[in-house]
């Protein structure tokens, strides 16, 4: 769905001489400043970092005759302000990476990946599907270990067959641990009740699917 370019952007990209380009750039910044500053403020907690990130974003947007902004003009499918915030946020993270190095910036990602490695989605959902209290066994028996592996394998197959939106819902809910309200926002759903209903339906469907595979009870 293409959309018209905002006037400030249109003026900037079509400015014919340096003077009018300068005026248009100033008008552009005046108009969109709060989005750029708001993004820098969101990404960087420290005041100096924030202002440096803000400046970095502005320089990057102006770079190569406003190349990034021209990219939006080629395919203006979203609101310009949304697109601008997405790009500004990425640039702010670029800035932080260049200042502090990769490790510190991506520590959140690394932590997520480590968390992911520890508990796969199917394990988390298997917990949801397990009826009653789990027996407290320090050393699970070989038979129990076999049943757990069988459950995980069947669940992985069932998950892979879900529609992308349903799989995304379960990932957000169980793997990322997001609250239902946030899951609804990321999925662009109207309310959290939709998430609750869909989650209930999905878990019931998975349980049914597992039973179809002969997994009736995860524990012997």
């Amino acid at each position, binding site marked *: 769905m293409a959309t018209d370019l905002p006037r400030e952007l249109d003026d900037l990209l079509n400015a014919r001489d340096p003077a009018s380009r300068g005026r248009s750039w100033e008008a552009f910044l005046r108009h969109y400043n709060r989005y750029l500053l708001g993004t820098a403020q969101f990404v960087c907690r420290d005041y100096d970092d924030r202002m440096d990130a803000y400046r970095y974003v*502005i320089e990057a947007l102006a770079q190569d005759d406003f190349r990034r902004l021209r990219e939006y003009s080629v395919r203006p499918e*979203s609101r310009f302000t949304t697109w601008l915030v997405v790009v500004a946020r990425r640039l702010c993270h670029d800035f932080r990476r260049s200042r502090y190095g990769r490790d510190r910036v991506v520590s959140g990602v690394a932590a997520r990946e480590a968390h992911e490695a520890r508990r796969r989605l199917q394990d988390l959902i298997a917990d949801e599907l397990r009826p009653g209290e789990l027996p407290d066994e320090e050393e699970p028996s070989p038979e129990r270990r076999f049943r757990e592996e069988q459950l995980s394998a069947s669940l992985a197959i069932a998950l892979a067959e879900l529609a992308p939106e349903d799989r995304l819902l379960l990932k957000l809910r169980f793997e990322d641990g997001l609250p239902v309200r946030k899951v609804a926002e990321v999925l662009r759903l109207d309310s959290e009740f939709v998430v609750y209903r869909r989650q209930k339906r999905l878990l019931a469907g998975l349980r049914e699917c597992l039973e179809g595979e002969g997994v009736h009870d995860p524990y012997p």
Partner: protein
Amino acid sequence: MRVWNRRTGANVDDLESLAEGHLDAGSISAYLDGRLGWGEKERVQKHLADCPECRGEMSELVDLLKANEGRRRRWPLAATGIAAAAVAALLIGGPLMREAADDPGTVRTPEAAAERESVRSIAVISPSPEASVAREAVAFAWEPVGEGTAYRLTMTDGAGRTVWSTETHESAVDVPEDLELHPGETYLWYVDAVLSDGTTATTGVTRLRLTP
């Protein structure tokens, strides 16, 4: 799809444009705005389900957009306007410098900044925008704008990098002796104020030339 390859490390200046294997800004923003067609939306959701990095980005963006929408200005209005003006002046100096031609020391007059941002102006007492000042004589003073006003003075180098910033309730402040300033160079400085009634005021961005 363009690259946003966090795994390659910070070895290029232009990381934002490298987004291989991840969702590009256009797809993400169109998804967030609910403007994708069914097939395209499904493609994005499929990628999100398989990509923890893009899920993390999407999740953060949801919060960021909400914060932007509901943001009450936690920074003085003047600071936002001036920051933009100062950076624009540094990047494309021509128009702003010409605008200030009548006052060669002022990148943007406080009146102009105040008019654009609907904030009060603060009159600079010293150093005079036209004067060149010896390093040891650098001290800032401005007209007070009310009891209990909090001021933030920011000083940047010619490239816009903050070299010093301080907060005070006084209307004058000395530069720390150990602050490294280079004779012969030009710096920029401005004072933003938050008044007790919650309104803001500014000096506008002013040049400070040090004698060689």
